[in-house]
């Protein structure tokens, strides 16, 4: 190991740190810019990881197959009588009809889910108030809806689409039941059919396969799907767990699609911004470089010192943005900012904002900061370091 050479690098690092203190306003402005650029990047990645975890549970605990009606490429309801056809398929453990729709409670869009009451899992571990459905008209409401409209257990209310029918709040979902439970209303399938006027139709059938027979059922359902023998008029669309898993993987990989598109704009604006702020106090830097050249510094040493400055600044910027993201998401539960990453959360989220802090976003943030600062200063430094010292001092 070349010890004197190592010592010279260490000295340059110390000189760079000294410069950061000496040009404190410039250091602070660059740090602020870096944090402003990196913060949304880290926050989006951590929230995406958290949502992905909940989404994986949704797929895992969901049905093996989702069977819906299909007409002209759109999902349509299927008649309830098709349930018998599905149950008769060999290898099917059970088939459950379901109605899922969207409607309003006051001025807010909610998801309405109706399933047979006897198909619901027993102990209501996900309810933090009230109990399970017992009578017709009973509903379970999401924590966010309950809080916004004071729908506590025992309260009666009506939907704008059917004002004559009264519903009774039996229980309130815990806010820990995933982000999608916050704006959901759950009721019996009979009540849901009555509310939407669907009579003897359902939006989809949930098909659960016997162990190791999913492939067999998949083949049979695909035959049904192609032959159009399912129901008198309608075709069906079958979505297997395998297909849904592909949605999961692609949907979360594609996040980089939409988010990068948005982020490219921010990045494109950040580069010239940093170019400008890096030139903040550039007159002092110009004189300093000239003096260093006069006292015998090499151009490469000056460039290395600036690179060290950028490295320290980038490390600081990435860490500050990472810590700020942690405090804002985990301790303040994404107050004000969660709505930019999870739609329909409002200014103050009523549920724990899902997030997972992993090393990779921190590392990427550091690289991003380094790229920005290097772009902003290395070229200018190289130009100053290669001109005549007298010219630089002047």
């Amino acid at each position, binding site marked *: 190991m070349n010890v004197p050479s190592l010592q010279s690098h260490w000295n340059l690092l110390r000189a760079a*740190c000294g410069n950061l203190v000496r040009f404190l306003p410039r250091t602070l402005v660059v740090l602020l810019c870096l944090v402003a650029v990196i913060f949304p990047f880290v926050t989006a990645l951590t929230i995406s990881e958290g949502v992905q975890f909940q989404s994986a549970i949704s797929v895992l605990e969901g049905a093996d197959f989702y069977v819906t009606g299909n007409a002209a490429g*759109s999902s349509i309801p299927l008649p309830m009588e098709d349930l018998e056809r599905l149950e008769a398929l060999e290898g099917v453990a059970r088939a459950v009809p379901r109605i899922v729709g969207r409607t309003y409670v006051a001025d807010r869009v909610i998801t309405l889910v109706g399933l047979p009451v006897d198909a619901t899992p027993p102990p209501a571990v996900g309810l933090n108030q009230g109990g399970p459905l017992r009578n017709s008209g009973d509903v379970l409401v999401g924590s966010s809806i309950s809080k916004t409209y004071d729908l506590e257990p025992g309260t009666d209310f009506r939907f704008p689409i059917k004002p004559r029918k009264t519903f009774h709040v039996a229980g309130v979902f815990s806010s*820990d039941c995933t982000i*999608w*439970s916050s704006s959901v209303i759950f009721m019996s399938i009979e009540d849901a059919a009555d509310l939407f006027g669907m009579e003897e139709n359902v939006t989809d059938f949930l098909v659960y396969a016997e162990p190791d027979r999913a492939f067999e059922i998949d083949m049979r359902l695909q035959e049904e799907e192609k032959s159009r023998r399912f129901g008198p008029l309608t075709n069906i669309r079958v979505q297997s767990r395998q297909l849904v898993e592909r949605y999961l993987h692609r*949907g979360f990989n594609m996040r980089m699609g939409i988010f990068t598109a948005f982020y490219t704009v921010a990045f494109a604006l950040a580069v010239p911004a940093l170019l400008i702020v890096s030139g903040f106090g550039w007159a002092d830097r110009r004189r300093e470089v000239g003096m260093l050249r006069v006292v015998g510094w090499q151009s490469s040493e000056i460039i290395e010192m600036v690179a060290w400055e950028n490295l320290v600044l980038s490390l600081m910027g990435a860490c500050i943005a990472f*810590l700020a993201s942690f405090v804002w998401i985990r301790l303040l539960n994404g107050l004000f900012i969660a709505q930019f990453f*999870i739609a329909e959360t409002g200014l103050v989220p009523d549920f724990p904002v899902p997030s997972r802090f992993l090393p990779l976003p921190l590392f990427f943030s550091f690289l991003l900061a380094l790229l920005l600062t290097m772009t902003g200063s290395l070229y200018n430094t190289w130009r100053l370091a290669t001109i005549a010292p007298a010219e630089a001092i002047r």
Partner: protein
Amino acid sequence: METRAKGPLLFCAILLFLSLSVLALDAHRWKSLSDREMRWFQELTGGLGMGAVAAPVWSVIDFDPRLQPVDESKLWPVPGSYSYSPASTSSVTRFREVLKDSDPAKTSKEE
């Protein structure tokens, strides 16, 4: 110059230590995280919700592609109604229709 150098280096070391501590704490929290309520809710509803959207505003596909794999609200303005929806209601997730293996329209580009 040398005495000034200690400040930024120390500050940098503290920030790095805090960041690594946060990573370690979060990893520990993640291991002990209870998903009992989440599993119960998903079992109750038969699997509901996949995207970073709390309610199915504009397009259902962003909320859960199992419910509506096609975003019909984006097709074209409906006469007398609202125009097409925003490109996506979520900024961190995005679903597009997945074509089945048996679908002859599937292209290599799609995959």
